[in-house]
């Protein structure tokens, strides 16, 4: 019987956290891969849509109307990323598990902004900026991050005649 107790103890101490970690990794990486596939596909569709970060409009843009457009995404960590980042936090260094997460957030926010602009009939966006904010605490003690918001915004413009001065 005492052999069983030992095994149960071992399972509770190492097996269970490992199992949860693996399940979290499995779901997390599946969702991440799917998201990246969707991002690449939609970026390819928007390839001819100019999104630039100039803060003044290029001289040769002849514009008939303009508006501010925004795109934002709120994205959360999975348990696997959180645990591995926690271990990284003990010794320092690049938090490699967070990098693809924020990459997804940036590109998704830009995509949503561009899609919004195109839906409203605009031809391009300039003065594009990215903002990020920590959304909320995952725990009551004020520690832990529930998620981050990535916000992309810029000035969408409709050309009177496309690239009038250069063509």
């Amino acid at each position, binding site marked *: *019987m*005492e*052999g069983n*107790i*030992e095994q149960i103890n071992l399972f509770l*101490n*190492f097996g269970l*956290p490992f199992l949860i*970690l693996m399940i979290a*990794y499995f779901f997390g*990486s599946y969702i991440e891969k799917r998201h990246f596939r969707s991002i690449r596909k939609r*970026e*390819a569709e928007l*390839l*001819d849509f*100019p999104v630039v970060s100039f803060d003044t409009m*290029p*001289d*040769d843009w002849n514009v008939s109307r303009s508006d501010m457009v925004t795109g934002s995404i709120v994205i959360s960590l999975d348990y*696997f*990323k*959180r*645990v*591995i980042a*926690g*271990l*990284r*936090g*003990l*010794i320092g260094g*690049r938090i*490699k*598990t967070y*990098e*693809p997460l*924020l*990459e997804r957030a*940036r*590109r998704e926010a830009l995509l949503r902004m561009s899609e919004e602009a195109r839906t409203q009939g605009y031809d*391009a966006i300039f003065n594009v900026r990215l903002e990020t904010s920590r959304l909320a605490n995952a725990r009551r*003690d004020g*520690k832990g991050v529930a998620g981050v918001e990535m916000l992309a915004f810029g000035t969408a413009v409709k050309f009177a005649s496309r*690239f009038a001065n*250069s063509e």
Partner: protein
Amino acid sequence: MRFVAKRQKEGVNVSDTHPLVEASTLIVGLAAIFAIIAVALIFVVELALYFVSAEDEANLFGDWLPDDLITVAPNDERLYQTQLLVDRLASHWPGAPYTFRVEIDDSEIANAMALPGGLIIVTQGLLNQVESENELAFVLGHELGHFRNRDHIRALGRGIVLSMFFAVVTGNDAAGIGIKAADITLRGFSRRQETRADEFGLGLVHSEYGHVDESWRLFERWNIDGSSFLDLVTYLSTHPETGDRIADMKRHAELERWPVDGEITDLSW
């Protein structure tokens, strides 16, 4: 100005390392580091034991009691009898540097422990479960064995080591893996100490009664009887597995040619 459509470059902001490689490197590495620190700290405790003699310790902790201890009434007959039994057993340990003091803890969970300065604490739960004086004598002899090997100070050192780890990684549930690695390393050390304490305790019991009968009967009961499961779990958390332990004790008694049959003394309360 002409707009030329370009695909976004990938991989600049994202590391190439596979997440599982990153995870295993961190987990294995940190577990190893924690285990090494734990071993290093054990040697520090050994060093301290070398410089602080048992006599110094006895002087320092002579009348110390843990703050959270809830004892039974001081005129309890069991307290008097247990103290008497400890004194009889200790008389077979010539030159013992401690004056042993017995306290009975109010707890219903069976356990016994050795604390700095020669303090032995047995729980009411244990006294309720022992059926003969011989059974109790072995448990007390085992604790005296801890004093002889000064394991009680080592245990204290281990406690400090573990709480240091907890302090370092507080608020970081991931680092619990490291704490467990340290804990398991420490437990490996403590098993050997338990075996040595068993052998010393058995020797005292033999000197007192002329035989070692019923020394391990309590553990045999726990091994078979599932009703005291809770007691078993608690006792196991600080002592080795009972099955191995009984076998070790039998082997030791045989080696020393100590009779395993003899007259059993009843409890005097």
